[in-house]
């Protein structure tokens, strides 16, 4: 139920978009290939129409997963290729990690707070509401995770004038 609400929110958020926008909001589902954990994520994409983008983001791996943690951080995304509605980009990410159930782990040196760095690549496609998929590698924990989500743009400088249906 909780996951459904998150997806619904992201969908409605994505419905407020504009080709002119420079700021986008998005949400995603996450799956860590090594820890076999499932999570959700949220992000804000600054300079969303530019090739170099700045993306603050938050991720949360859910309590029923083997690893329960949250991470807040900042990504830099560089578009590599663009073809019609498809775009491919590489990314780097630095983040602060709070590993909630670290005491359950047998890993040597496991601790609650960590600084993470990630490298990755992604693709996005669509007009207005865009789908995106990312593969990211966490250098600190040597883990890869996948993200699949939606991004929707908000008109730059017109957010006060246009009321979005999502908030009606």
């Amino acid at each position, binding site marked *: 139920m909780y996951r459904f609400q998150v997806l619904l929110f992201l969908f409605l958020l994505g419905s407020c978009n504009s080709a002119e926008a420079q700021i986008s909001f998005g949400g995603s589902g996450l799956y860590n290939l*090594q820890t076999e954990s499932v999570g959700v994520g949220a992000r804000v994409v600054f300079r969303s129409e530019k090739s170099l983008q700045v993306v603050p983001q938050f991720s949360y791996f859910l309590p029923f997963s083997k690893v329960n943690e949250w991470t807040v951080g900042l990504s830099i995304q560089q578009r590599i290729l663009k073809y019609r509605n498809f775009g491919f980009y590489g990314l780097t990410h630095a983040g602060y990690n709070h590993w909630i159930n670290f005491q359950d782990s047998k890993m040597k040196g496991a601790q609650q707070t960590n600084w993470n760095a990630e*490298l990755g*690549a992604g693709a996005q496609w669509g007009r207005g509401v865009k789908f995106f998929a990312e*593969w990211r590698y966490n250098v600190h924990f*040597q*883990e890869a995770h996948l993200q699949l989500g939606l991004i929707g743009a908000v008109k730059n400088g017109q957010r006060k004038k246009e009321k979005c249906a999502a908030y009606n």
Partner: protein
Amino acid sequence: MKKSVLFLMSILGLVVVWSACSRDRIEEDLNEFESPNTYLDSKKQDEQVFVIDSAGTGPIIGNQGTAIWGGIDCLRLPNGDTIDYPFVVKLVELYSAKDMIYYQMPTVGQGSALESAGEIRLRAEKDGQLLSLAEPCAFKVSMPNLTPQQNYMSVFYGNESVSPVDWRTDLSYWGITALQSGVFDVDTIGYTAYIEKLGWINADRSISSSTTRTFTFDSDVDDLTNVAIFVYLPGSHTVLQAEDAVVTGIPNGVDAKVIAIAVNGSGTLFHFYDEIIANSNQTIMVEMSSITDANLTNILDSL
């Protein structure tokens, strides 16, 4: 062009990091073991010692029936001098799979699995100094076998400079000019041949197989670092031993018996046993379980 290069570099970078993934955060503690060598050494065949104090007709006969004929005139000290009586002859006999496993003496020659009729180690000493055969001398050995085949087995010598011992037929490797045939003849004991070098001797035959298989051993519960893993091929009496939990060169389609042996910090004996047909490269998941010495011995006896 610049974007293409960036893209290719990104792909390359991702491939590199992909190969370094870790499951450390969710892995359970693996059961750890200590080296099983002390246990295996305690079970291996004793080296038999024969004191030769006068001339005779021979042969020297080992506990398992190996017969040896040789003369003092053929023996030399490390400095090349001849010797006088007495001197000692030492013999180790490994005919069963169990004894080859206890001694950790696989039957592999330069990477290829060998069919074996048995292994012996024949040495001679004088006052603690290891003796060698003078050229062009040879000792005759007969190795017991119930169904020997003429012109079937070759004389393989053990190269002890590598571990495990590597079997090879070319005496020139040691700088010896071969004068004997290098192929076992048949006598009333079994296989017989003239050997031109003391040390490890194996009556072997290369197994011809155009396709070979690899067994890779893994475990979700056990650390296999100190686990001795063997693959025995009963059809050819071949013993293979895993290196870094991998056994290569298994002839395609043969029946294989896997036996793994370990000892934990408390001295408890553990084992894993499986029977597999080697019709593909396989990853075999190992789960060690405790076993008594008597029961493990029974398993090895029944290989």
